[in-house]
């Protein structure tokens, strides 16, 4: 028997994911530096409201409040012993809301990066990364998550570790990376390289894609890069609602619901199947996105110029794929240790 997400994907041309977790929680009073995962136990009703907000705005899938729920991140708050508990409860609150929705809604167990740099550049070994992700995955599974949702990853090695953890937990999974540095991930991975990475994993994700990053336009360019690489799996697009702006001591994102509605339709036309928002995307954005996806007919895939005209310009001239992929430095004799 296939998993609920695969079944839903078979029935529908597109699915709408959720929006921001952090931005919503800050609006509910989360303070800077406080780990959001603590709210799964301390303020469960607010987490229920967060999930319900996405479902009522039309999301077919929402992410659990467990992004920073790995041992490495929780350790910064002295809570590395609570990984299993916080993930289980984060997922079970989601299960409760999804089961009450009256339609198929997928609970996706969010797993963010460890925040550490992997060996050989950094200290984090593959074994320890797998063990941390696995611990988190088991908690999410226990709480009733339908799939694991690995997101905002920069390093291919860390993505691979999460894949292995999903395999160990015998869970289907989805994975997205953040392309925030000149169209690549912080670690230099291009959209085309991610497609190649996904296709060679032993336990590949159901769907893969991009989240967060710079703005909606950059994210769209990444989606076009995925499509050009001929992926075998559905593409996920979860872009930020514009760019953060500072006003009178707090931050808001400048993307309007109308812009995000345009983005959602463009993402679908470009070939993305699971479409949602990331930072700054509130329920009102999701409602506009859902309405646009339902009411506007599917069009041809947009060009980069059309994307820039509708969503704004790109943060860099190139994203490291296609014709201008080269650009290494001319060097003298080569030596390797």
């Amino acid at each position, binding site marked *: 028997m296939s998993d609920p997400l695969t079944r839903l994907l078979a029935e529908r041309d597109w699915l709408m994911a959720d929006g921001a977790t952090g931005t919503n929680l800050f609006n509910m009073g989360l*303070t*800077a*530096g*406080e780990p959001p995962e603590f709210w799964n136990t301390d303020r469960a009703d607010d987490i229920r409201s967060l999930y319900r907000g996405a479902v009522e705005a039309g999301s077919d899938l929402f992410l659990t409040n467990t992004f920073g729920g790995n041992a490495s991140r929780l350790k910064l708050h002295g809570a590395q012993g609570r990984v299993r508990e916080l993930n289980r409860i984060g997922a079970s609150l989601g299960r409760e809301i999804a089961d009450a929705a009256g339609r198929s809604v997928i609970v996706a167990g969010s797993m963010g990066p460890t925040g550490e740099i992997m060996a050989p550049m950094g200290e984090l070994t593959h074994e320890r990364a797998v063990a941390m992700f696995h611990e988190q995955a088991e908690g999410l599974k226990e709480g009733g998550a339908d799939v694991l949702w690995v997101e905002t990853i920069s390093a291919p090695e860390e993505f691979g570790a999460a894949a292995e953890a999903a395999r160990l937990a015998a869970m289907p999974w989805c994975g997205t990376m953040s392309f925030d540095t000149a169209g690549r*991930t912080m*670690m230099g991975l291009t959209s085309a390289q991610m497609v190649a990475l996904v296709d060679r994993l032993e336990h590949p994700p159901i769907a893969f894609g991009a989240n967060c990053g710079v703005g909606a336009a950059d994210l769209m360019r990444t989606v076009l890069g995925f499509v050009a690489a001929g992926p075998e799996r559905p593409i996920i697009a979860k872009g930020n609602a514009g760019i*953060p702006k*500072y006003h009178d001591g707090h931050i808001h994102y400048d993307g309007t619901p109308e812009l995000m509605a345009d983005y959602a339709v463009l993402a679908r036309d470009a070939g993305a199947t699971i479409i949602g928002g990331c930072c700054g995307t509130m329920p009102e954005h999701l409602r506009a996105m859902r309405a646009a996806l339902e009411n506007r007919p599917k069009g041809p895939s947009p060009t980069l110029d059309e994307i820039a005209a509708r969503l704004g310009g790109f943060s860099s001239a190139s994203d490291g794929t296609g014709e201008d992929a080269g650009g290494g*430095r001319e060097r003298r004799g080569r030596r*390797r240790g």
Partner: protein
Amino acid sequence: MADEEDIILSELDDEELVLQMHDDLYDGLKEEIEEGVNILLGRDWAPYDVLTKALVAGMTIVGADFRDGILFVPEVLLAANAMKAGMAILKPLLAETGAPKVGKMVIGTVKGDIHDIGKNLVGMMMEGAGFEVVDLGINNPVEKYLEALEREEADILGMSALLTTTMPYMKVVIDTLKEKGMRENYIVLVGGAPLNEEFGRAIGADAYCRDAAVAVQTAKDFIARKHNKLGAG
């Protein structure tokens, strides 16, 4: 690699060796950098010249390619690591010879924020450019910044934030500096993914730095201006 392609560093003349060290820094070859530093010192180069002509000049190339999206974090980390190994040899010698100091920076991620990859990169690139860097780590309250700035007699304060919720704390630090009449003593640089120039201006920083390479250039510019001012005054 085949043996015949190997370059014997000690057989290169000074100019060739320095260029080779730039390449080796670019490739993050730590042992080769250590070897190159020792060879130049053995040829009676002043430690300060080894630092500036071989290491700092090499890291400038790395910084420019990082800024231009040709190199990414893993390559920069390796290069910085090689640079650090060379610096470890030079540091005691620089102190002994009374070499000119470029400047000193106190850097840290603001209170509530635990992200440090970007901050670490800035610290490494600043060291790569010859600055002294005092790294306060993550989650720093205002008192910690102020105390370190005074203790270290620093020139530059660098603050980093990755979260939209923690970036306003930078303003708290700057406002406190103003209240205590200390603001004019320091060059304040801010950075982090969600920031932009407009934000930097709004909170009263001297500059927002988009990435580590820009941070180094900006720091150099401000230090040069400060020196000019002192010279003129």
